[in-house]
């Protein structure tokens, strides 16, 4: 373990900065927020330390209900297997009445990289491998359509295809489907490339 890094001091400093520079400067806003949150967005982003939407899209507290998981995946609705994801979507759509669900993929995603290494990799990670297999259909489709693609090019294609699959999978949640039909909800797919420094909207789904 590193001896020079003090994790507690690090978060203490971070919290102090937030309190002094943000919270104390807009007490009305935060008082209102403490009563109720009314985010416009539900966002799905990767757990990767480099892609927090708060950082890259300058989000303020209260703007986005945020799910973060490996490879920003949304599996098909399954109450037994994926109640964690279902709970996020249910709360955001049914209780918070978000207007937009944004799924953000990104470059050099370790989760997609792991998926591409399967099943040949010798080491198995039970939980990780089970989770990233949610994106298996995207992987198979991309490989079938791009037989010559490999390396980073292949990974990028799968990262993006997986975002589009997640949008499709969102529609398997009944309240998402009815929200789209009622024009109270729309879905966006985005992609953050931190190698080139750009952000792309890949797809939208509306009524």
């Amino acid at each position, binding site marked *: 373990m590193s001896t020079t890094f003090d994790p507690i001091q690090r978060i203490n400093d971070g919290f102090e900065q937030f309190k002094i520079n943000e919270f104390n400067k807009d007490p009305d806003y935060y008082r209102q927020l403490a009563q109720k949150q009314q985010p416009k967005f539900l966002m799905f982003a990767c757990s990767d330390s480099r892609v927090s939407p708060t950082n890259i899209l300058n989000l303020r*507290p209260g703007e986005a209900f945020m799910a*973060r998981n490996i490879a920003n995946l949304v599996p098909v609705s399954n109450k037994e297997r994926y109640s964690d994801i279902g709970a996020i979507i249910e709360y955001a759509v049914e209780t918070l009445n978000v207007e937009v669900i944004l799924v953000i993929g990104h470059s050099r995603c370790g989760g997609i990289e792991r998926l591409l290494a399967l099943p040949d990799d010798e080491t198995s990670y039970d939980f990780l491998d089970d989770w990233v297999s949610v994106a298996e259909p995207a992987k198979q489709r991309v490989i079938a359509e791009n037989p010559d693609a490999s390396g980073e090019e292949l990974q990028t294609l799968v990262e993006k295809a997986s975002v589009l699959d997640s949008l499709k999978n969102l529609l398997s949640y009944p309240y998402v489907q009815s929200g789209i039909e009622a024009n109270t909800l729309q879905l966006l797919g985005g992609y953050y490339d931190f190698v080139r420094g750009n952000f792309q909207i890949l797809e939208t789904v509306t009524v």
Partner: protein
Amino acid sequence: MAQLSLGSSPIYKAKFARSTIFDPKLKFLEIEQTQLGFWNSSKKDIFLRLQTSMVPSGLNPRDIYRSNMALRLQASTEGVALVQETTETTPKLINDSSDSFTEMKNRFLSFKKHKYLENLERYQELAQAQAPKFLVISCADSRVCPSYILGFQPGEAFVVRNVANLVPPFENGPCETNAALEFSVTTLEVENILVTGHSCCGGIRALMSMEDEENSSSFIKNWVVVGKAAKSSTKATASNLSFDQQCKHCEKESINNSLLNLLTYPWVEERVAKGLLSLHGGYYNFVDCTYEKWTLDYQKSNPKQETGGYAIKNREFWS
């Protein structure tokens, strides 16, 4: 009315595909829309040529018109956009979508200008590899993002966000949370795990409110039941308090419950026992803007006991 169904047949009567790059350096860009099998089979590849001015707001998607198959971007007066002509159908304004896009674009370009480009070397290093010192497990609540309230910058924290910042035990089987746990601990080798809860948590409230039913049609109930041990201990020790106070008690109990659940993963416990990994609890009260933190004292804890005994150390209260 939208026709929505799943499967590989054409599904969306009314949808559009677009590909927009937010990048102030963009001069001329040709974007090919990938054709994917499950979309409408008559959809063609869409080629969109964008020519922006050097003004960052060169792209002005203020008015976005949708047709069945193609899209039309109305160029700003400053930038010139060569667009793909739409087909014949009557366009429909999508107000919220265009507002969302414009705002998102502005925010991203601001991040790029003020943070990414000003710290380019750091971002280029990060693009090669991440080495975060923290795994943070936080609630999905819009008010409690750890990047904001604890100031985590890109590269510092691998983050999981779910309803009520819960960690299920090993025996529950695979899910998104323990997939991230496995990756961050065994591959990224984070040195700290922080489970951070917060005040007025809707998920904990749902846990405290629900009747003890095994099967429910609600996803939320099926998920928050992971925290049932915290609910039981709250009911046992705090039943004389008001419901709101019990919820607050449970918010904190649940953090400790999650810390103990972390130790049910062998590769977590092994590292904690060797002193390579520390487990911390945190509680953000956004009503009065205070933060409480503590660390699990592994040496003095006996999680395998029936009572699930644990000890904590280094408790601090920041206000």
